[in-house]
Each structure stands twice: as C-alpha cells, then as structure tokens.
C-alpha cells in the first residue's frame, strides 16, 4: 500500500501540478493581503489578525475545487489516457488501487488546506491582534477540522462519479453542481419535515452547530450529523469500489 500511495503522490505532484496550485494559492493570499492593507490604510479600518484570517479562509472553496481535480485526474484521467490498463495489469487488487487513489488525494487536499491556513496565519501576523494569537491559531485548527467532513464527502462523491463516468470533465461538473447549488435545494426544502434527512443539509458542520449560527441544526447533535455523513461517505465509496472491481477496461 505504501508503494501505491507514493505512486499517487508522485502522479499528483507532477501530473496535477500541486506545486503550481500551491503557488497560485500563495499569490491569492498575497493579493488578499495587499487589498486588506490598502483598504486598511485608505479607510482606517484597523483590521486585526483574526479578521484577516477569517476573510482569507474563504479560499477553502478553491481547495475544494482543486480536490475534485485531483481525484478525478487520478481516476477518470487515467482511464482517458489509457494508463489505467498498465496499472490494472499489475499484480495489485483493484480495491487497493482505488483506495490509494482517493485516500492519497484526500490527504493531499487536506494538507493543502492546512498550508493555506498556515500561510493566512503568517500573513495575518502583519496585522494587530486583539485576542491572543494562540486563540486565532486554535480557530484555524478548528476550521480545518470542521471542513474535514465536507472535504471527505465531496472527495467520496467525486470518486464515485469518476468511477462511473470515467470522464474528467463530466465528473468535475457533476461534483461542482451540488457543491454550489445543494444549499439552495436544502433551503427550498426547509419547510418540509424530511429536509433534515437530505445529506447536503449536514455538510456545513461548522455553521449548523455553531452556537452563534442563526440556521437551525438538522439533527439535535453534531455527532449525529457527522455519523449520518459518514454513512453516506461509506456507501458512496463502497459502491465505487464494487463498480471499480467489476468494471471492464475497454
């Protein structure tokens, strides 16, 4: 398994250009930093470290989108380039091949998110802080943890769609659609009792169970929501693995 994980990391780094993605994220953070400084000085807003970090954490959208690219590239990308043939001829079970793909790219996506948060924190140090820096750091750590269920869910969804369609563009579109529009669907369904059983209602764990949040929580407990999400994640991955094992490579 270790060899497969190394392989997937190597292919993600060279093929999906993680270095370039990191550079782009750094440039975006630098851009946000310059804009924040400019606004700060022009309007005298006196932005704090916490505020800068909170504004910058919106970049998690890009990490999420990039995670779709990573997973679909690893699964349907190999099907379209034909490299999947050589991969599946080797004496390794298809389960392990697929497991290495989504697991490695999930971990890479999470590490990229941590990299972005760390960079935000570093740039945020240029601003004054009103709460202790350790609290801001803890807030970032908490944000990363709260985002994890959502990241795992969408990586599992992208894995399933990539295995079924074997098409990179279709997979990305079909994964992006619920990412951007599921909230709207949940909002429209909110007046019905069954709305709390829509899986997308549970994805935003942070806002659902944040004490200051105005939105009603779908389940009484956060852990019940996470459990509900995990069942869906496990189901999607199980279906993906069964299909991948039986699929003909033509």
């Amino acid at each position, binding site marked *: 398994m270790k060899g497969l994980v*190394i392989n997937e990391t*190597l292919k993600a780094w060279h*093929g999906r250009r993680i270095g370039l993605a990191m550079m782009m994220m750094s440039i975006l953070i630098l851009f946000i930093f310059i804009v924040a400084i400019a606004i700060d000085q022009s309007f005298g807003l006196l932005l704090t470290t916490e505020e800068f970090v909170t504004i910058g954490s919106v970049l998690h959208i890009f990490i999420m989108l990039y995670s779709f690219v990573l997973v679909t590239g690893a699964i349907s990308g190999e099907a379209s380039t*034909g490299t*999947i043939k050589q991969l599946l*001829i*080797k*004496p390794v079970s298809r389960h392990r091949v697929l497991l290495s793909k989504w697991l490695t790219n999930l971990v890479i996506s999470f590490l990229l998110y941590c990299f972005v948060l760390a960079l935000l924190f570093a740039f945020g140090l240029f601003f004054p802080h009103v709460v202790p820096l350790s609290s801001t750091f803890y807030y970032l750590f908490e944000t990363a943890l709260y985002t994890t269920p959502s990241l795992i869910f969408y990586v599992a969804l992208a894995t399933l769609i990539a295995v079924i369609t074997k098409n990179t563009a279709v997979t990305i579109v079909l994964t992006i659609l619920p990412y951007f529009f599921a909230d709207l669907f949940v909002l429209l369904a909110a007046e019905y009792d069954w709305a709390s059983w829509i899986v997308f209602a549970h994805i935003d764990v942070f806002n659902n169970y944040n004490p200051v949040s105005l939105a009603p929580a779908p389940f009484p407990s956060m852990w019940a929501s996470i459990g509900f999400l995990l069942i869906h994640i496990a189901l999607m991955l199980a279906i993906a693995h069964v299909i991948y094992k039986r699929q003909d*490579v*033509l």
Partner: protein
Amino acid sequence: MKPLVVKQLSRTFKGHKVINDLSFSLDRGLIYGFLGPNGSGKTMTIRLIVSLIKMDRGEVFIEGKDLNKNREEALQHIGAIVEDPDLYTYLSGRQNLEHFARMSQKPISEERIEQVIDLVELTNRIDDKVKTYSLGMKQRLGIAVSILHQPSVLILDEPTNGLDPNGIKELRYYLRRLAKQDGVTLLVSSHQLREVEVLCDRAIVIKDGQAVDEFDLRSSATESTYSVYVTASPEADAYTQLAQFGNVEKNENQFVIYDQPYEQIPAIVETLVQQNVRYMRFVTNKVGRALLLVIRVREG
C-alpha cells in the same frame, strides 16, 4: 507446466458472442503470433487474459495460477502492452519504471531497473520526460515496464503499430533476445503478417472468437508460395501461356497468378521466352503460410 493455458474462454459483448469457447496454450520460450482478421477477437482475448475485462465463462492459468481464483498471483507472471504503450508522459522514463516497480509483489532492485534500461537501450534518455520520446522509444519503455518484474509470459498487442521500419527491426531484435536469453514466452498479436512470419516460432489463428488453427512457422517456412506479377506482350499469348500454371487474373495492365511454388518460377519464365512472349515486368512476391491461412480464414 505450460506458462499460459486458456480454456474454453467465452465473453459476450453487447449481445454478440465476441469470444466463443476459445482454448489454446503456449509452450515456454517460444514466440507466438496471434493472428486473425479485424474483429476476430484478438484484443478482447488479450484483455481477458490480463483481467482487464471479465470472462463470462472459462479459465485462464498463468504458471498454473487460476486467474479467477488467484488474480494477483497469476498476474505476477505476466507482462503486457495492450494496444499502445500507455505511460505517464509527464514523468521521466525512470520514474515510470520506479512507479511500476513499486507495484510488484516481489521487491525490484535498482540493479534490475538499470538492467531493463540497458536491455531496451534507453540509458541516455531514461531521465527525460516520456512526452519527449519517439513512438519507438515509448514502445521500448513499455516493454521495459512489462518485463520489469521478470514475467514468464509477455503479451504484446499490435506492438509494431506506428513504428517505422527501423523501429520494427529494433523491436524484433529485443523480443527475440527476451525469448532466447530470458526464456520468456511471447504472444504477439499483429495484423502485419509478414512481421509475424519473420518474428514468431508458432502461430495461433482465431476467427469469430474461436481458435481455428495453430501451426509451426519455422517448419512451414518452405511451404511458402509466391504470387507472380507479369506485364507482357502480346497479351493474348501471355495469358494463354500463364494459364498453364494456374488461374490468371488481369489486374490493370498486368497478369497475376497466385499460389506458385518456388520451384515453378523458372518454368514460368522459360515458357514465356520459348513462346516469344516479351515480358517487360516480372515480379514475384513471397506469401508465407501465415498470410495464406489468414487470407483463407478471412474468405471463410
């Protein structure tokens, strides 16, 4: 023990029985040609043998390991290039080899990697990105990837596709070396029948997903026949004289007679000269047994 045994393999695809009760086996250290007209099921058979597609019925044994029951153990003994040598073009040749080495059940040493690089003569370009390689170099790297784990069976599907004559010659040289030096059994599917005749020891012919013939290409070398192409005048006389040797076809401005044994060719020339038929062009084309068989299979 035979390195590869295929027993009553069947596969239906889109309601059509593409592979139908196909059985054959390979002897160790020989190069087999896998022949058949387009759509006869060659590529499908190869995909079934390497488990890229599932069989409906039948068994495949690689070094005695049942592909259905011990897939990983069976695949450990086989290497294959199916259609194109699909490699990671954004990685270097060496990174590709290391990538596939990490997928082997038995550890593959750095020395082994260097050994296969030497074998396919890619030492000077191995650290370059694969996207800069020529098709011939990719084909050689594909072979290196396929033999890295020292398989006893190597399957190549149309390996000469897209190669120039020099590339084909080089490939032939590597494959012969593999069979002779390492005792690897090769199954080479190709539509270039002359190539199969030159390269292979034996041939398996399939039609409509069934093995219809298997023969020794080395002992059948003398069984080749020739097609004779003649442009001569007067044409009527030429036709009459040539007709003594078999069916004559008129093709544009030339006559063609097929299936002529090698010993008969001087007699054809002598007859034309004796009967004062002046020939402007006299060309013979060797047609090996493999080609003849496939032509017959195609004609049904």
